[in-house]
């Protein structure tokens, strides 16, 4: 199959029904996408397909054919990443890549209600979600930290 992965055109030879999660982790060695349950409940494997969050454990590889796939490795100093470190959004970190990508899909400055609804498919057992909301609310636009 061919698709765009984190902005790079990518070709990989896999069974069309292979889980996108396995293709990313095992064929392409992008292990930032995590497996928490394998049944689409926890959201740890969230990636973006054409900007929309999906559970990579439920998506067959063929579904990504021709699409643009973004994993955590595809974010480059996104303001949400720093905010998750600064404001306690990441504790054990296993839900964090999926959580950040789901948050990216919310767009800038989401309301608390929008965050609650948009992140309802991403389980976190460490934070009680409060620090995740604070991280998203306090994520600053990239221009402030463009230096370096």
């Amino acid at each position: 199959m061919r698709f765009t992965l984190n902005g790079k055109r990518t070709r990989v030879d896999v069974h069309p029904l292979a889980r996108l999660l396995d293709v990313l982790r095992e064929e392409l060695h992008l292990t930032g996408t995590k497996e928490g349950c394998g049944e689409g409940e926890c959201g740890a494997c969230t990636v973006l397909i054409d900007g929309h969050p999906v559970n990579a454990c439920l998506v067959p590889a063929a579904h990504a054919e021709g699409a643009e796939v973004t994993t955590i490795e595809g974010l480059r100093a996104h303001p949400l990443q720093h905010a998750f470190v600064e404001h306690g959004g990441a504790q054990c970190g296993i839900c964090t890549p999926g959580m950040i990508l789901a948050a990216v899909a919310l767009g800038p400055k989401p309301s608390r209600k929008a965050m609650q609804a948009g992140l309802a498919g991403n389980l976190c057992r460490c934070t009680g979600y409060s620090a995740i909301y604070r991280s998203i609310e306090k994520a600053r636009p990239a221009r402030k930290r463009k230096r370096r």
Partner: protein
Amino acid sequence: MGRRGAVGSNVLRKDGAGKVNGRALYLDDLSFPGMLHARTIRSTIPAGTITRVTPRVATREFIVVDHRDIPGRNVVALIDDDQPCLAEKRIRHVAEPILVLAHEDRETLLGATVDIEYRQTTPNYDPLRSDVTFKQIAIDKGHVADGFARADLIVDGEYRTRHQEQLYIEPNGVIAVPDGHGGVIVYGSLQCPYYVHRALKVLLGLPDERVRVIQTETGGGFGGKEEYPSMIAGHAALAAIKSGRPVKLVYDRVEDMLATTKRHPSIVRHRTGVTKDGRLTAIEIDATFDGGAYATLSAVVLSRGLIHASGPYRCDHVKIRGRATMTNTPPNGAFRGFGAPQTQFAAEVHMDRIADALGIDPVRLRELNAFRPGDITATGQTLGKDCSALTVLREAVKRTDFRKRRKALKGTGRGIGLALFFHGSGFTGSGEVKLASRATLQLTERGARILVGSTEIGQGTRTMLAQIVADTLGVSYDAVDVNDADTGVVPDSGPTVASRTCLIVGRLLQRAAAEMRERLGDLSPSQYLKKHGPLVVTTQYEKPEKVSWDDTTYRGDAYESYGWGCDVAEVQIDPVTSQAIPVAFTTVHEIGRAIHPGLARGQIEGGSAQGIGWALLEEVVIRDGRMVNSSLTNYIIPTTLDTPPIEVQIVDNPYPQGPFGAKGVGEMPIDGPAPAIINAIRHAGVDIREIPASPERIQACASR
């Protein structure tokens, strides 16, 4: 040095960058050349004996491991050593490991079948009717008969809690790699590398240096990766030794929920004498914990549970009896709070029932009886100035305008309730003396490196310890780094459990850093290294002078210090579905002093949410000894939509013997939410005494 200290400020966590850019390596992200995958074959009956085991696999392709492959003792060494690593004949629960299979190809491995024949015996699932008692404990203060004689009123009650799954989002997993000299190196998602180290030495019959355990980035533990990784590591190590190849053993979610330890279910009975004006004259408590099939940590879970069972209240006459018994269900074990959430649930729901019986305000009842400095606990410990029960109670009542709210909500279908609680920091009783933990600090060019077996599992160990060392040594936070928890390199600083890492290990490192600073004198680290060569300082636990404990009588200072908390919950009961919806939650915590206020707040918020889940949503359904809802589809933990806003207030009361005034924080947040919520439901008109307070249970209680 004049710079602003790291302690007390929200420095960036040491492990933050790797966790947000996807580069942090968790167990399942690792791979080794020639690696095999392994799978555990388990019993399917709750009780009986194995009569025949027939693997239906091509034996040339598969590595098949059974109990005969164990070179040392067939036990998961911990306290009682009663649990086999691989069952030989006797089966005590449905998920008992019998074989380990390993193969290069995961799909082939998953397709393999093994026929097992059994002779079944009658299982017992009732902890009150068990023939086997793992541990019983008695705590006595005064004479309860005298206390009851002075009472105007006696209030009885029985309270029940059920299993809870830790549900770390990263399932359990290890990789065992042969070291080429007959030993193994084990990588794993775990809390206590030295527990695994010891268990493997016993299982494999190997000396210290032939077993090396390295913690990988760990995606949550909550107690669930305290003792169980010793079992998994044993399985992977046996397969690695037999095959001579690296072996990866990672549980999927179903297996993790089906087989690994959970919070002990409890049945706690209270009988309390009280005067008309609300003073407690006698407290009698009888507690039974369901240990499951093997002893694991039940003895110490029971111990912490019973010591906290009479709550943070003064009373001259206390009698506490408790036991952990065996049932034919998978073994229960460590889970954040370690017995104290169960017993304090009972104590705090009972307090509200006493208030109701007396017709007095629940706040007033608690104000009258809450521990003050100078009061004596059930084990005979005299509390010092680090006792803040009254402070947190009053702060929580004030912040929530509790009394006014309680009046306003009466009869609206909403209710508000509170719970007052405490939690001892560190191992119970003489535990810390026996552990004799050690911590090492190594001078580096820029500052220092911390070497401890204490693990980062999300709570902030690396960050918090580095803050303590930085300020004590007088270097910047960035100049302190933290070694991996690798038993080949770090000393045994004890397990990462029991709200002990900050107080106990933090204090060891504070002492090490103070000594290092003295040795440095006026020299910078790099000047010292150039002039004198390497500098390594190791410190060992020293019992604070005033602390004493007698294991035989169960008298003395059960913990060197306690944290104090008060939760207030507001709950709406849906009149149609009977669902209790938490709408507001406030928690006040006194933890000495927060080394990192952001991380401490994270512990309190997360622990509260986990407690809210236990109170309302999380139900392990067991049929014929087997968890039947072992998946995230039907074992429900709080999502964003189930978690109310959590208001946190941290009250400072620096503990003089703690590092920079700190005590423990990890466990206490889960003690309060369940009773606060159940008391809110009671206030809304439903007398419920068992959790989780599911719609079905609420409905049953409402129509009684």
